[in-house]
């Protein structure tokens, strides 16, 4: 318990950047922005100013208008708001939704709930490299399709979908397009001015901001309508009621501004370490298999299958590494990753896969140590079974 654990689980959550923490803490003191941003008095207006500044920072990272950003309690709520919001608003137009089997649980569970409400869902299967050919999405569109929801970067394997091409296909057919960008914002360049994306979900805590805050981009031109999920008070243009958490919003804004300023630097740092980690693992465990497309991907996520050893044992044997098997939200259950299974990996191999996710504060020494630990523990477990 005393030995230091190497944190390689940035895709589950990132540490708050110290520069973000400073801004947040400043909001939380008695001298800070303690008032309710909805209040008419001066302290209230000051808080509102800080919220609006953060809204601009979030919008700037993805080249959107500040008025197109709605703050939520996180990407899960953003996904819920986007999908249920569209489904319930446009239900008289059609009841068909297209999504992929490898989406985050926030999208899958929401679509399943809509299925129970009478909506029809097409669950697309990506290729073995995790990528979804854009024409597969276009081909799934029907006259009654109202929404396509495809994530930008997959949280387990890190592959990046071609949202530009998918968007062109949906826009041509007048179908709304939602993208969960929780894992890609600040890691890959996103220009919503150039993309035919109507709704996009963001998370604070995947980008060195706080947990419990997220945002949904809602395009104004052409305008997207949503039915709100949380009612009462009319905050955020009536789309999301509830007192705004100024410190959380300020933290997310600062995190997004920092990400914008150092996007290339972060991506370069992380890509180099990821390469180093994969080389290190592959040297010690030649039978290791890389999951997901080798190049069309985000820099920070490396998902590797280790054939011939059992997944939970491997994960626990590597107890000095904070890595995950499957996504964090699935970790409590011992089922093999549904994402890897959707890509056609056998249960046994899918079960013995580890996701290493690297970030801004990861060092070469940590990566080298991780490769060594995984290599040693793999050999040990393999020899038990031999």
């Amino acid at each position, binding site marked *: 318990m005393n030995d230091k654990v190497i944190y390689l689980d940035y895709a589950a959550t990132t540490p708050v950047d110290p520069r973000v923490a400073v801004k947040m803490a400043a909001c939380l003191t008695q001298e800070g922005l303690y008032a309710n941003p909805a209040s008419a008095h001066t302290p209230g207006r000051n808080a509102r100013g800080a919220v609006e500044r953060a809204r601009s920072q979030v919008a700037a990272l993805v080249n959107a208008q500040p008025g197109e950003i709605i703050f939520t309690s996180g990407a899960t709520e953003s996904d819920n708001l986007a999908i249920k919001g569209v489904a319930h608003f446009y239900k008289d137009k059609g009841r068909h939704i297209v999504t992929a089997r490898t989406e985050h649980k926030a999208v899958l569970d929401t679509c399943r709930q809509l299925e129970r409400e009478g909506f029809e869902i097409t669950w697309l299967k990506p290729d073995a490299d995790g990528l979804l050919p854009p024409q597969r999405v276009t081909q799934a569109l029907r006259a009654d399709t109202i929404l396509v929801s495809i994530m930008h970067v997959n949280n387990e394997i890190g592959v990046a979908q071609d949202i530009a091409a998918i968007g062109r296909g949906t826009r041509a057919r007048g179908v709304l397009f939602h993208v969960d960008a929780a894992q890609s914002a600040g890691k890959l360049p996103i220009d919503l001015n150039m993309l035919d994306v109507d709704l996009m979900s963001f998370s604070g805590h995947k980008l060195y901001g706080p947990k419990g805050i997220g945002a949904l981009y809602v395009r104004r031109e052409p305008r997207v309508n949503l039915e709100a999920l949380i009612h009462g008070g009319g905050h955020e243009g009536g789309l999301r009621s509830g007192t705004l958490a100024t410190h959380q919003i300020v933290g997310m804004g600062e995190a997004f501004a920092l990400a914008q300023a150092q996007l290339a630097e972060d991506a370069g740092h992380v890509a180099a370490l990821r390469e180093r980690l994969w080389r290190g693992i592959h040297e010690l465990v030649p039978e290791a298999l890389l999951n997901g497309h080798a190049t069309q991907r985000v820099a920070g996520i490396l998902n590797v299958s280790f054939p*011939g050893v*059992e997944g*939970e044992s491997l994960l*626990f044997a590597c107890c000095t590494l904070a890595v995950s098997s499957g996504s964090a939200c699935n970790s409590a259950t011992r089922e093999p990753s549904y994402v890897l299974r959707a890509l056609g990996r056998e*249960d046994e191999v899918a079960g013995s896969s580890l996701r290493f996710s690297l970030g801004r504060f990861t060092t070469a020494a940590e990566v080298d140590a991780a490769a060594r630990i995984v290599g040693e523990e793999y050999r040990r477990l393999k020899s038990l079974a031999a």
Partner: protein
Amino acid sequence: MGTTVTGYHANVWQHFRAPRNAGMFAPGTPGVVSGRAGNAQHGREVEMALRLDEDARILECRYRVYGCPATIALCSLASEALRGQPLAAAATYSVLALAESLRLAAEKRAAALVVEDALREAAAGYNGPLPPYAAATVQAKQV
């Protein structure tokens, strides 16, 4: 003994981290019976081997294991417990009771049953009184 931060009993954790008596006997070792259970495709597979003396007493218990930490630890613990016992003990030893004493979660009971099955299988491979010890070997039953 408390549970470790991993949620496993400290004994389970220790035996998972450093399993005792792991690895099989060299081929042709005299007095060995063995049995296999489980299936790697279903998450766990165990082969248990017992080296017996002329009185059918267990001199040594070794194993091969593919599975979760609980499966590995139960193999290790059982191998220690059975050393020096008569062969009949392998047929009646309750790995399930061991698992319960280690407070393994209900979904881990299957691990205990696989280890138990492998032991039963090994014991069943014994074909009656052994010939003079040095003269003969007992073939492991083929699965």
